[in-house]
């Protein structure tokens, strides 16, 4: 019987306790517990429920040169995640039971964290016909989140049908809100900086108009809508209004939209090219406030690995996207905790409890309490860490935070009672 004792860990609320883990459960919490097995000194570390990411691009199948389920799982564990959600825009697209089961099995084989596949809303992400949503929901992967992420479900009728259809099994549609006609050729946030740089603008209204439409649709059919990577102040205001009137809407913000602004684009370095684009200072401030006050429910990474050649080029030819699993905690601590906008309780909520609830991941996001599944991230909340792209576990190195000094670092990660990251080093026992 495997046993781990976490000695003198600080809980989100501030109390210092010893946590005993037997097999895959937390068996005892107290002070001065006696160790009969493995002991980890956790003094000065926060014990938080293992993080849950609802928005991860793992690139397998199709682009295994940039990331695989295994390498993405390693990156997840380095970032304190015990569950990630594989986006559907692979090749082939995850629009059938076969593909989602393949990804799900690869996650089981990697055995570093839970990998929950997200199913496509439309066949081939083409936005024309519904994908086999029911078959994916009934498959071994038991898919509950559906998204055409990378593309917007722009057809209002298809969106309505998708929202209705997933009600039969309590699913949710995660919308990538981007009106396609308003963003033809768009490169960066539309405004003063874009006008100077001569880069085609990406108006805030392209995001906000879709969010507004989808909230009205979700209200009408009484279904659950999740908004991916909210990036503008206007979107925040719409979601706040919707929640006040009782809409079943949840929303996520990415770490990079909490920290970076469009000013970074002045370098023309495509490491800052991302969809949705980096926005202005007022947007960043609104997103932080919204995450603190609950208007935005969760942090999701939109971890998007890309090959070096797709970033080491001119802006126009570069791919959209940034990796984020390994730096998410540090960015959230630096922007939200160090600034006093929120405390550790709220951090545990937005990075673990709430995403697990939205995704229906019942064994994830449980409180650090006796009987809970032992998924735990142990975090040094005051570490000052310089991000270095060469230190990433991810197969791709496209981090926009390279060289920045951020606060907070994940030290150990425990997944289902097993230490998968110890002293920032990986402990793998993957199968397959």
């Amino acid at each position, binding site marked *: 019987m495997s046993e781990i004792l976490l000695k003198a860990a600080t809980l989100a609320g501030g109390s210092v306790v010893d946590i005993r883990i037997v097999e895959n459960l937390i068996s005892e919490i107290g002070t001065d517990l006696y160790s009969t097995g493995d002991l980890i000194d956790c003094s000065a570390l926060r014990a938080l429920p293992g993080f849950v990411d609802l928005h991860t691009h793992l690139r397998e199948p199709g682009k295994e040169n940039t990331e695989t389920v295994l390498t993405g799982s390693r990156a997840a564990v380095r970032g304190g995640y015990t569950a990630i959600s594989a986006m559907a825009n692979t090749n082939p697209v995850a629009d059938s039971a076969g593909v989602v089961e393949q990804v799900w099995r690869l996650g089981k084989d990697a055995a570093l964290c839970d990998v929950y596949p997200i199913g496509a809303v439309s066949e081939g992400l083409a936005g024309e016909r519904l994908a086999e949503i029911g078959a994916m929901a009934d498959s071994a992967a038991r898919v509950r989140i559906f998204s055409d992420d990378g593309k917007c479900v722009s057809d209002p009728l298809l969106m309505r049908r998708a929202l209705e259809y997933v009600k039969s099994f309590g699913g949710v549609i995660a919308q990538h809100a981007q009106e396609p006609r308003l963003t033809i050729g768009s490169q960066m946030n539309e*405004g003063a900086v874009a006008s100077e740089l*001569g*880069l085609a603008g990406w108006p805030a209204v392209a995001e906000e108009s879709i969010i507004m439409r989808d909230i009205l649709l979700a209200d009408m059919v009484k279904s659950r809508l999740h908004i991916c990577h909210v990036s503008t102040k206007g979107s925040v205001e719409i979601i706040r209004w919707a929640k006040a009137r009782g809409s079943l809407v949840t929303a996520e913000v990415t770490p990079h939209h909490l920290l970076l602004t469009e000013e970074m684009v002045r370098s*023309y370095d495509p490491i800052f090219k991302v969809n949705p684009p980096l926005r202005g200072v007022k947007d960043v401030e609104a997103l932080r406030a919204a995450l603190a006050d609950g208007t935005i429910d969760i942090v999701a990474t939109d971890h998007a690995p890309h090959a070096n*050649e797709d970033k080491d080029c*001119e802006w*126009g030819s570069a791919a959209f996207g940034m990796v984020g699993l390994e730096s998410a905690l540090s960015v959230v601590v630096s922007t939200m905790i160090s600034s006093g906008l929120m405390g550790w309780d709220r951090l545990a909520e937005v990075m673990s409890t709430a995403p697990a609830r939205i995704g229906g991941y019942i064994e994830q996001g449980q409180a650090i309490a006796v009987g809970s599944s032992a998924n735990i991230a142990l975090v040094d909340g005051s570490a000052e860490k310089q991000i270095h792209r060469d230190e990433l576990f991810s197969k791709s190195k496209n981090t926009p935070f390279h060289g920045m000094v951020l606060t907070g670092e994940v030290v150990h990660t425990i997944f289902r009672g097993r230490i998968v990251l110890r002293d920032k080093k990986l402990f793998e026992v993957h199968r397959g």
Partner: protein
Amino acid sequence: MRHLLSVDDLSVDQTFELLDVAAHLETLTAGTVKKLPTLRGRTVVNLFFEDSTRTRLSFEAAAKRLSADVTNFTAKGSSISKGESLKDTAQTLQAMGADAIVIRHPASGSAKRLAESGWVSASIINAGDGTHEHPTQALLDAFTIRKRFNPTGRDFNGLNIAIVGDILHSRVARSNVKLLKKLGAHVTLIAPPTLFPVGIDSWRVPFSYDFDSELDQFDVVMMLRVQLERMNESFFPNGREYSRSYGLDEARLSRLKADAIVMHPGPMNRGLEISAGSADSKKSVVIEQVSNGVLVRMAVLYQLLGGPDMQLSGGGS
């Protein structure tokens, strides 16, 4: 100065120094011998990812008149169309010994990227990057204006300049607004609302949707080329309506000041943004702009590639 990527790279003093060098080159090459030995042994590569015969020929003439070796690399029929990247192309040219790379590219920021990415060590000259900048065009326009209004002056104070047309997509407008403002001119932008960028307020220049109200105030009217595909993108209904509101026709031409000049970066759409009568009128300096373009580009190449010990001297010396 190692690169010329943006007019932001130039101080007022550096700008006038360049314009002075160009003026000096004009006198030196005015005679029968048009060629100077200044850049003998240096290699200039024209790296053109967009069709622009005029700009390429202008840079080619400039380099040749300074005795540099010139290699032209154009996208069509080259490895670019086979998917070779900008990085690989530039490094290949570097390996062949390019001292300067003149780049025209459809992506905004590509010249800056080439200069700052560490891919190559050659001097980079931006010959137009997407809808961002075209600094040598602004310099040749400044040279042309200066020559007309105050050939030895050190500022453009009191000059009233209108730039008319597709501001949104124009690299010529972006470079000219910044440079002419920096030199002291009063610049006004004129376009339909659809062809101004959102964020135009931050440019800190007056802008107007009305071409006619201040027509008699301008010393310089710079017309921008209208890309025909803009019509299909609903920026304006059709060419006829555009011409009526924003074209420089004879009626508008006749209302200009007696000594006002009409400029156009070329190639012109006669009958769209400019009538044939206006293009060929005495006020038009379009042809002069072309010859000044060679002089200004010679000055830029000289400043970037010529060391401090290098002297400008007459042909044959």
